[in-house]
Structure formats: structure tokens, C-alpha cells
């Protein structure tokens, strides 16, 4: 033996520190050199390092910056024959325990986290490092670490997404010919019972062992090309959607339903319907943008964006429907329709050219009454904006009776009498009313009966079998249809949306 090398002959009488000092003395232990074992044929075998991880908790899987924090106990186990003290100290059967100081005097495999943002070893006064050397030379090192790791989230189905976050451990210095990483065979990854994930639920996890090839085009290991051993474990997390349902989906359903209040208002009520449409859209954009702040800007369309866009289209559609209905309301022509069903009403409403052309043809065919047609159109338009049309009905009845009195039976006379009686009961100025009606009737008698009769006859021939709808009636009809069409469409949209969410 060299004179400078302390002896190990009396290992039992030494204290633990003295024994370790002699075991790790420079003459017999080189802490820069890995332990070397040989196979039966004399080849150098790589060091097998067995890893085990215990996760205390995970924290803040932040979608905003794609990170998550992990607090774990990381344990490495390997065999170093140079530290075998069974022969030199047979009575010592318990492993030698030490902390950071002991670890600093040993050779230690350098393992790094490939996807780390930052990491550190926890500890208050000293680092939480536990080093244990068994009598046969097995070294077990445990570290309590805190690591911020990157998790590349896929937010396509946000907020109904599932994420896979990996933790990758790699050998820094030695390639697979010198050092090979393994997971322990029994329970390599375990978790604390209360993992304290607030937004996600841990479904399952698995561990994996691979080999990573590093060359000049992939410089993960400095300048040394070769195959490096790599371990990884992956957690499968499912986002809990209760928060998003309560705070975003339910309020947006209510806001879309409020925009349908517009269909119950009258078509000419422009100020309230415009206020209703713009305010619901403003409220909805406020709600949608509040959710967008919690996410990174990604290029693909997320499921939540599909939802918000669909709801925006519904609110926009109610505004467009109002513009359509208000334009129809302000028309001046009545629209004749064959039957009172959807097809004919829409057809007549959306094709005003035929009506105009037909009116033009009519005026040409009866050149003698062109001026009267123009006056007729003006009067009808004027009547549409006030209630005089209703007021004129009794005159119509009386006049008809007066005209037909000279040609038809006495039943018309009875009808006229009934109307007179009703008028007398309905108003206070019965005498003046009766006088006025009589005067009107008398004045009508003086006109040319033949011309009046022929005009009425032609009108009757033209409009036989058709029903006339005023623009206001068409507008109301469209509004009453929209009251069912929009909620039904929204229901169908929800059906497709939630089917897509839960089936794909």
C-alpha cells in the first residue's frame, strides 16, 4: 500500500465520518470517474441508474404561458462497488445516511429535466437531499425538487380539452455506452392522495424509457454526439368544465335569449329594437373577451370560439331580421297573395317587380282611368299611416247600400237601418253624424252611376280569388315566424355543438 492511502483494516473502530473519509479518499475513489463494472467477458458495462418519482402536488397548469409546476421527490439508485464497506466493516449493517455534504463527496449521475423552465431543490436551512450508502455499495440519493416545466397544450377543444404533460429526464454527460437510465420496476411514479389540481383532474399516467439521438443537427447534449438515455412520465389531465359552464355558457345562452325579445316588439319600434340588438351584442362581446384573456393566442379555432361565434351570429341575425322587417313595414303597396301560407307570402314579398309591372300594364289597358289610378295609389298610401281607413268603413257600407238600393231587394234597406241604429248608440253626436252621412249619400247620388259601377266591377274581376295583405301584416307575420325559427335554430345549434363536444 502507498504511504499516503489511509488504511481500512480497522473499519469497525472508526466513526462514520472517518470511514467515509477513507472510503472516498482520492487514492481509492475518484469522484470524477464513474463506477466501472466488467462483464464476464471483460467488457465495460454501463452504469444502471434506477429512478423513482413521488409527486407531492402539481400546480397552475396555466394555459396562458403553457407551464406547470411540479413538486416531487426524485430518487436515484445505482451501484458503486468502490463504496462497498461490508468487508472492511462487517459489524456495520445500517446504511450510512448523509445529506448534501455526503453527496458532494461522491460521484453522482447528472440528470437534467429536458423541458424545464427552471428548477431548484427545496429546503429551508439545508437542501432537502438525502444520501444513503448501503453496505454493498448501493447509493440512493433523494432530492425534493420544485420544477416549472413546459406543457405544450392543445387547446382545440378548450374548455373540453384533455392534456398530456410530460416530464423528461435525460442523462447530461454520459451516453448509453456509459450510463443507462431506468425506472424502478415497482411503482416508479406515485402521487400524493390530494394532488391539489384545481382546474384539472388526473386521469392516469404512464412512464416511458427511450433513447435520444444527439448529433450535430440536434445539439441537446453539447458537442457530444451519440445516443443518450431518456426517461419520461406523462400525466393525462382532463379539464373540469363546471367553471366554464357556470360563468360563460349559461350567461351567453341567456344573452342570446334576450335578443329574441326583439321579435315580440312591433316592427316599426326602431329605437327599442336597435337598443336591444346592440346592447345584447355589447354584453356578449364583453363576456366573450373576458374568457379570451386567459388563453394564449393560438392560430386554430377552439371549441369555445365556435360557441361564441355561433351565439354572435344569432344576435346578429336578430338585428338583420329587424332591418328586413322594418323595410317591409315602410312599404306603400299591399301585396296580393294566392293563399295565406309561407310560400306565397314570402314569394310575393320578395318579388315586388311583378306587382309593379302588373300595375303598369293595368294603367295602359285602361287609358281613360289613368289619372284615377294615380289618385287611388296616393290615397291608399296616405290611409296606411293613420286610422282613417277604419273610420271610412261605415261610409263604405252605407254607400254600397245606397248604390245597390236602386237595383236590389229590400234586405239592403234593413242593413242600412241597423247601421244607423249602431251609430246612434255609439256616439254622442248622433244627429250630426246622421246628417253628415245623409249629405254624403246625397252627394254621391248626383254622380254618374254608370261609371262608378263599371269601375267597381273591374276591380272585383281583377282581385277575385286573391287575398291582400298590407306590408304591416307581412312584417308582423315574419316577426311571429321568427319567434319560433330563432329559438328552434338555436336549439339545433346547441344539439350539434354539444354532440360534437362530447362525441369527438
Amino acid at each position, binding site marked *: 500500500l502507498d504511504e499516503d492511502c489511509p488504511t481500512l483494516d480497522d473499519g469497525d473502530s472508526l466513526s462514520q465520518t*472517518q470511514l467515509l473519509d477513507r472510503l472516498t479518499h482520492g487514492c481509492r475513489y475518484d469522484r470524477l470517474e464513474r463506477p466501472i463494472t466488467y462483464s464476464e467477458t471483460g467488457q465495460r458495462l454501463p452504469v444502471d441508474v434506477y429512478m423513482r418519482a413521488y409527486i407531492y402536488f402539481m400546480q397552475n397548469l396555466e394555459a396562458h404561458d403553457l407551464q406547470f409546476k411540479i413538486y416531487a421527490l426524485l430518487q436515484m439508485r445505482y451501484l458503486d462497488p468502490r463504496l462497498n464497506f461490508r468487508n472492511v466493516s462487517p459489524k456495520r449493517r445500517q446504511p450510512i445516511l448523509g445529506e448534501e455534504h455526503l453527496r458532494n463527496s461522491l460521484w453522482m449521475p447528472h440528470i437534467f429535466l429536458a423541458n424545464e423552465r427552471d428548477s431548484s431543490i427545496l429546503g429551508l436551512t439545508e437542501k432537502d437531499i438525502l444520501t444513503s450508502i448501503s453496505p454493498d455499495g448501493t447509493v440512493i440519493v433523494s432530492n425534493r425538487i420544485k420544477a416549472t416545466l413546459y406543457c405544450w397544450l392543445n387547446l382545440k377543444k378548450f374548455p373540453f380539452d384533455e392534456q398530456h404533460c410530460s416530464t423528461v429526464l435525460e442523462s447530461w454527460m454520459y451516453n448509453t455506452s456509459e450510463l443507462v437510465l431506468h425506472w424502478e420496476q415497482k411503482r416508479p411514479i406515485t402521487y400524493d392522495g390530494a394532488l391539489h389540481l384545481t382546474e384539472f383532474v388526473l386521469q392516469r399516467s404512464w412512464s416511458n424509457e427511450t433513447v435520444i439521438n444527439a448529433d450535430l443537427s440536434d445539439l441537446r447534449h453539447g458537442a457530444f454526439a451519440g445516443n443518450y438515455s431518456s426517461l419520461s412520465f406523462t400525466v393525462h389531465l382532463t379539464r373540469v368544465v363546471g367553471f366554464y359552464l357556470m360563468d360563460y355558457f349559461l350567461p351567453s345562452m341567456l344573452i342570446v335569449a334576450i335578443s329574441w325579445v326583439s321579435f315580440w316588439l312591433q316592427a316599426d319600434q326602431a329605437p327599442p329594437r336597435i337598443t336591444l340588438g346592440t346592447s345584447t351584442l355589447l354584453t356578449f362581446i364583453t363576456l366573450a373577451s373576458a374568457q379570451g384573456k386567459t388563453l394564449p393566442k393560438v392560430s386554430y379555432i377552439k371549441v369555445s370560439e365556435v360557441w361564441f361565434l355561433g351565439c354572435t351570429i344569432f344576435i346578429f341575425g336578430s338585428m338583420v331580421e329587424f332591418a328586413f322587417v322594418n323595410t317591409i313595414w315602410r312599404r306603400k303597396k299591399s301585396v296580393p297573395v294566392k293563399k295565406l301560407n309561407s310560400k306565397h307570402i314570402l314569394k310575393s314579398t320578395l318579388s315586388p317587380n311583378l306587382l309593379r309591372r302588373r300595375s303598369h300594364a293595368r294603367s295602359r289597358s285602361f287609358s281613360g282611368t289613368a289619372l284615377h289610378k294615380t289618385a287611388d295609389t296616393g290615397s291608399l298610401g296616405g290611409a296606411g299611416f293613420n286610422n282613417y281607413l277604419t273610420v271610412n268603413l261605415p261610409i263604405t257600407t252605407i254607400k254600397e247600400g245606397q248604390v245597390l238600393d236602386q237595383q236590389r231587394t229590400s234586405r239592403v234597406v234593413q242593413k242600412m237601418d241597423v247601421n244607423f241604429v249602431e251609430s246612434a248608440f255609439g256616439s254622442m253626436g248622433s244627429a250630426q253624424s246622421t246628417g253628415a252621412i245623409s249629405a254624403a249619400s246625397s252627394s254621391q247620388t248626383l254622380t254618374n252611376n254608370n261609371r262608378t259601377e263599371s269601375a267597381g266591377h273591374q*276591380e272585383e274581376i281583377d282581385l277575385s280569388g286573391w287575398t291582400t295583405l298590407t306590408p304591416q301584416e307581412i312584417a308582423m307575420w315574419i316577426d311571429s315566424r321568427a319567434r319560433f325559427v330563432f329559438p328552434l335554430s338555436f336549439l339545433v345549434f346547441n344539439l350539434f355543438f354539444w354532440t360534437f363536444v362530447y362525441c369527438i
Partner: protein
Amino acid sequence: AGVHLGDLQQNLAANGSVVVSPLNTTDAFSVSINLSQSTVNNCPSLKNAESMALMELLTRLTAPCRYDRMVPPVVHNKDGEEVPMDIYARFYIYVMKNLDSSDLQFTVQGLLQLRYLDPRLAFSSYLPNRRQPIMGESELKKMLWVPHIFLTNEQASTVLGTSAKDELTSIYPNGTVLTSTRLQATLYCWMNFQKFPFDEQKCKTTLESWMYNTTLVQLHWETDNPVSFDKQLQLTEYNLIGSLYNESIRVSNESYMSHGSLEGNYSIISFTVLLTREVGYYVIDYFLPSIMIVTISWVSFWLQADQTPARTTLGCTTLLSFITLSLSQENNLMKVSYVTMSEVWFLVCTIFIFGSLVEFAFVNTIWRRNNDLQLKKRTTKYIVKSTFVPHLKKHRRHGYRRTDSTMSTMSTTSMDKTCGPNNTVITIETPIIIGGSLSREDSAISLDEQDETSTSESSDSSKEKPAQTFATMTPKEVSLWIDRKMRFVFPLSFIVFNALFWTLVYCL
């Protein structure tokens, strides 16, 4: 004799030179004495400890030959058996801050004191006259074996101090070691927000032995004042109700490997602070404004049903204000999956504002109807029943419309003749609008009964009129009636909801 001296000379060669006198027996004895002295000189002596400096004394006390700083002291009881070492802890907290609801952390600054007995450091036998403890800072601590305690729920922790760490170590004459550390720790508090913002939180801090299990080390709290708080302790959002402290055991095995591969029971001491959230901020900033906004939406019921711009603006603007208010509160919270109390509150208030807008749509639609309601009595049942069955009137009105079109055409024809009499007729006819509608209905009757006699018709119509007048409500009257009812129904429902809500809040 020569061989003996030769062997002795060879064996002692490594330890120094020895003068050998082959003829005298006294010289051999002297050699033996020298050997004893050289063996004693390897371990520094403590005989003249009185004249030593404290640093010298400590250096000799903690020399490797009698003190191994990697090995815990071995404690024996009266029977000579080996018992685990008891470590007593005390914690004094003078700052507790940043109790944050969004990332579930809080920061504690305090003084952690550990006390244990290490017989290897007893110096009363060497220094009988000294009764004060030996005091030192970090350098003294590095020479000793100190128990390693870690905080299980820590996010980050550090020892405070500017130029040197704020650590104080005292060694008493009987070997009791007292270490005090000023530390700052950011700890996780796993909060439950089910009753937010009326919640109570229990933040538990656990100190655990890192290396040695219960066969070697056991942690205890001091019997007097184990956990105490500074009187000037100020929490911004919470009130400190009290604290609990506890000692327990954590089992480390294969499935619960919290201590590396070393299985066994580990000693744990923990203290829990009980905190109550101060609700004044939330009541003044969120609950009272939301009550006001919901109340403002009821102003709609005092407006007339045809005041559509005012009522829709009122409904939409209150909803926009309310959504903005509820969104600003959601930023204060961690995203949790369960339903919190504040979410229940905000959702129900939104439903109330939504309900007032829906009620306006209903009332406005009724206002614009053209048919009177025929009621048996003016009671709620008949009014609601008649309002919700418009089918009969719709059919009747449909049939009437065609006749109306024909009359409209005839009216147009009549206006074609003269302009002067037309104006006169319009002016005179205005007072009989109601009469017009009545005559319209009666015209329908007369058209259907053309074969009847004149006298019979007159008597029948005169009899029907009083009955209809007594039990008729116009659509506007129905709208006003509904609005008047809603002025009581909505506030009453809201009061009932508030009674249920605050009962749930304070009784659960």
C-alpha cells in the same frame, strides 16, 4: 532480550524514533509511557478547559474523535435502553401576508426554534463554574449536528438575514442545544371556495423530519406557547380566528414514498391557522351594487307597456352592467369546478333581469292586440286563461279580414269621386272609432243572419250589449293589469330568494 528489543523497535518505527538502551530495564518502561502519551495526543484534551477560549473549547468538544456531526446523539433512558431523541419546536409568527385566492399561497415570516438534548456537548463536567450557554451563529451551527426539518407544503423558503443568516445557536451546560432561525416561507393553502366569499379557510403548515424516522427522532411542540402570533399581525382580507397545533405520524412506504426509499414512520408536527374572510369588501363592492341593479330593472314595471324604447334600454343596460360586475369578481378567484355561492348569486340575479325583459315582451305583445277579452269575471284565473288562448279570436279575425279587404276596396272607390266631401267626412267620423269597431262586429252578425226580421235583430243586439260591456277588458287594460301584478311579484320573489340565500350562507 535482544530479539525483544529488535521487534519493539521495528513496530514503533512508524510512530517516531525511540532511544533504545539495551542494558537497562528502566529504559524499556520509559518507552511504554511514551506510547501511551502519543495515543492520548490524537484526541485533544479537555482537562484544562478553564483556561481555554470558547472557540478552542468548542473545537475540542466537536472533534471527530468524540463528536460525529453526521450521526444523531444516542439517548438512553434510566434503564440504559436506547430511546428516540425528542426535539421540541416553537414557532412565532410576526408576518402573514399575500393570502391570495387566485394561486392558493400565503407567505409567513416567523421564528422557528428547536430544542433538543445532545449529551456529547455537555460541558458542565469540564467547566463547573460556567453557567451561561455558549452562543453562536451560523458558524457554530455548522459544527453541530442539527435536526433537518422541512415544510411539506412549501413553495419556497429561505432564511432571512442581510450580511449573515439570522440563526442563533445556544449550547447549555447540560448539553441542551437551542437553535433559532428567522425564516420566510411561501406555503400553499388548499382553499375550498364552496362558500366564497363567506368562506372559512384552514391553512395547515406541516413540519416533518427529513432523515430519521421515529425510532431515532421524534418531533414535539413545546408545552407552553408552541405557536404564537405577533400582536401587530395584520391580514388584509382575512381575520385570524385562532390556531391549532397537532403532532402525528406519517407513514412512508412503497405506495406513499415521501422520504425516498427509506420506509418507516416519520414524526410530524403541524399547526393550522383558522381564517375567516372579511365579507365587507364583497358586500359593498358586489352584493349591494347587484341588488341595486336588479332593483333598477323593476322600474320597467312602472312604465307603460307601449314605452318600448325606455323599457328595452332599461333591461339591456342593467344586464350589461350586471355582466360587467360579475366578470370583474371572477378575476379574484381560482378556476374551480364546483359552484360557489357567489356564482349562485350572480346567476339568479341575471335570471331576474332576464325575466323583467321577457315580461316586457309579453306585455307589449298583449298591448298591441286588437281583440277585447270576454271574461266571466274580473279575476286572475279568467284573465290569464283568456290571455293565453288566442286561437279562437285568431280564426274569427282571419275570416273577418277578407270582408275587410272588400270593404277597403269599395272605400277606395268612393274616395275617388270628390275631395271636398271626403275631408268633411273624415273630420266628422273621428269621434266614432269605438262605434266603428262595434258596428264591425255587428255587421258580421247581420251578414250571417240576413234572413232574420228587422224587429228581431234589433231586440237581440240591444240585449247582448249590456252583458259584453260588463265583462270586457281591452288589451291595454290586460297589459296594465299584468304590469301592476309584476310590481309585487318580482320584488317578492327577490326577497324570498335573498332570504333563502343568506340563510344558506350563514347556516351551512
